[in-house]
């Protein structure tokens, strides 16, 4: 009886060891697209406290306010922080196109963090058309920003 139970134990362990999948795994490599941009700044820069951060942001929706940036955070892609107090800078954003033939970003441009608050963000300059990106595509864009005439959220008065 002991031998039979021992065999049962080992067979069960063997089945368990070989019969399960591995659980979580990294998603397969996705087809990628790239946005390669250049930003030119004209006019004077505001005081440093008013320019805490600048990033290029591409959104799959048209935001009505800064709150949308927070509430729909997973529907946007965002670049690393851009350099401040320079005449121009470049940025590169790699887009994951997993499971889609193309990705459309209805609203994109440079986001300006003007204060310490979580929602102290506003658009500085907006790209003038939707970005439609397909796998393997590299899309160069050029933006010109003026802190004296920043863009507004579509929902702003």
């Amino acid at each position, binding site marked *: 009886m002991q031998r039979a139970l021992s065999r049962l*134990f080992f067979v069960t362990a063997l089945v368990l060891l070989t019969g399960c999948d591995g*659980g*979580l795994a990294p998603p397969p490599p996705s087809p990628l697209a790239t946005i390669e941009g250049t930003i030119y700044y004209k006019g004077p820069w505001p005081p440093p406290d008013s320019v805490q951060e600048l990033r290029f942001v591409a959104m799959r929706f048209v935001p009505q306010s800064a709150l949308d940036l927070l509430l729909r955070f997973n529907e946007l892609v965002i670049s690393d922080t851009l350099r401040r107090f320079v005449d121009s800078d470049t940025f590169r954003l790699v887009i994951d196109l997993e499971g889609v033939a193309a990705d459309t970003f209805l609203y994109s441009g440079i986001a300006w963090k003007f204060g310490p608050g979580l929602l102290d963000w506003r658009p500085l300059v907006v790209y003038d058309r939707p970005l439609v990106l397909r796998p393997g595509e590299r899309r160069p864009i050029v933006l010109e920003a003026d802190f004296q005439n920043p863009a507004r959220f579509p929902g702003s008065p």
Partner: protein
Amino acid sequence: MRQGCLLLLLIALPLRAQPQRAGLEGTVRDIYGTPLTGVNVVLVGTLYGDATDAAGRYVISGIPAGTYTVRASAVGYVPAEQTVTLTPGERRRLDFALVPTVIEAPEVVVTAARRAQPLEQVPVSLSVLSLGDVTARGLFTLDDALRYIPGVQMTGNQVNIRGSSGFTYNAGSRVLLLIDGFPMLSPDADGVPFELLPIAQIDRIEVLKGPGSALYGSGALGGVIQVITRDFPEQPATEIRLSGGAYEPVRYATWKASWKGARYWRPFGTAIFTHARRLSDRLGGWIHLTYLRNTGHLNANERTLLQGYAKLRWQPAANAHVVVLSGLTWRRSDAFLYWNGLRDPLNPGRIPTTGAKDAVGANDTESLQWTLLPAFTHAPGHNLAYTIGGRLYVLALRPLDERGRPKPLSKGTLGFRYGGQFQLDWQPLEGRYLTFGASADAVATRSSFFPASDGRPFRSQPEVAIFGQWEEALTARWRMSVGLRFDAYQIRADRWITRLSPRANALFQAHPSLTLHAAFGLGFRVPGVAERYIENQEFFPIVANPDLRPETSTGYEVGLRYRYRAGRLAELNGTLALFWTDYQDLVEPRFQADRLAFQFVNLTRARIRGLETTLDVRLLDSWLEAQLGYTLLDADDLTGPEPLPLSFRSRHLLKTSLTIALPAHLRLGADLRMASRPERIDTEFARFVPDADVTVPIRVLDLRLSWQRPGLTLTLLVKNALDYYYVERPALLAPPRHLQLQLQWRR
């Protein structure tokens, strides 16, 4: 020949001396008045003695006049001694009240009704993990141990008993932790402090399932974890436990590429020293030292812990004792909060929109915790006992800067939890037990997360409670108990919250090996100071809500417990329970658009019903031991117009364990834990953290092989042997396969 003479002498002596001899008789009970059977009562240094009968009575006759030390001893109780002087012809009555010590028999529990009673008489569901279970599995902390208990599921640092807690982003625990009967949640976040007590000092862990506030007040919304610490043994004992191991490198190149630490084995280890001895007939205790170092399986997830612990017991009289338990724990750890997505789960994530440079998914801290638990128990009569106890829990927590240096305490948290309680146990009649008590406790916490107001840096929340319960053996087969507890919490200077928590239980012994029970009880949890007053922008924007209402629960349960024994050949213990719990006003964080921040709010109304069954089998004199626990949960969120699956609850939970004895002093064991994928998870977290909504079923297999000789045990463990990658809570990868070697030496 000599033995024959001795026998004759033993027989002849009392016969010859009968007229001049004295007699001794009496009753041995526990401190709660229950008669104890089989207790050895002896006159120390003589052959005179007796064992108590079913009524706890003993009789010793034919004792020569003189002064004797009379000793009563039984497994699981502190031996008691009394000195008596007997005159010729005297018949003296001498009663004993024994205090439970190491509760070795699985039949005895303490949580169910605040008193020791056989498991067969417990009218609620209860699971027990013994010291042997903990040691065999090489466990370091309480949360590791709880993962092996049927019906219990860990979601990060939150304990789910039958789905009670879900995952609520560090809201207070919906399960209460008791250490030797004293509530002990952390003073900062009302969480369960898993590292407060050295695991090697735990004698057993009992998990009471279902609302338990009628017994223990706030926090016992979904259940109670009772940790019973070891007592000192009769003989001096020393134990050294050395354990070391490493996490296996992850198998995916994508994950390794983003953190070089994942390409190597990541070591961890612990060294434990304990020593226990009697210092005199009346005084004894433990000292305990632990060093733990864990490099972690994730980037920024290291942990170092130093712990000292002592337990002293002084027995000034046979019917009284004082126990003082104190521990000091220093810990330095990186708390990995959330990952950087499923493509990069080994690195902490970040939320760029916060703009804070250190707003990454990890929180490095250094903490110091000190606990002090004194308790005095006295049994002035054979049917009366009382306990007076106190508790103090001090926490000092400091965040670390970028260089790993602790920031000032003003940037961290300083918290105190203190209080005391009185409990009276009275058995006026055979089969009737009455318990009354009162307690007063308070939390006072100062934290950089709780902004000061009115010039008062400390946020406090005092509470008082009175409780009582009545337990009655109606007939030989029917037992019932009812209890009522009144709690009052002061949440502001001008506002008190009061709760009345009743419970009722019935137990019917249908057969000597079969008992049926029914239980009803209420639970509640008063939100802690962290949930009320937290204000922070560093990790997530979150604002205070001082007006939170208590969470409440109403639980019903019917169940049975079955036991079968066929000598040493086979032993089987089984349970089945059907349960139904309604929850109201569960506190969860929600993003408040008008406040532009998260806030803890009373939101969810829920219903959790289901069944749970456990089976414990021992065959051929424990050559094979097997345990199985299965829990089916039907958890619905009733907040909206249509019921939805309740977030973060697995519908199926399975815990199995198998251990067999092999030749050459070897034992081989396996533990399998499985949980189905939660049908629904909260999406608020996934707004900010990539892939936070990704889950898989949990399938974790642990293997162990031990070689045991007297005083020495060597154990090889393979944890997560299937190298299965999973999450217990959103955005936090659980440990991959890791090997561990443990050496335990006892003397």
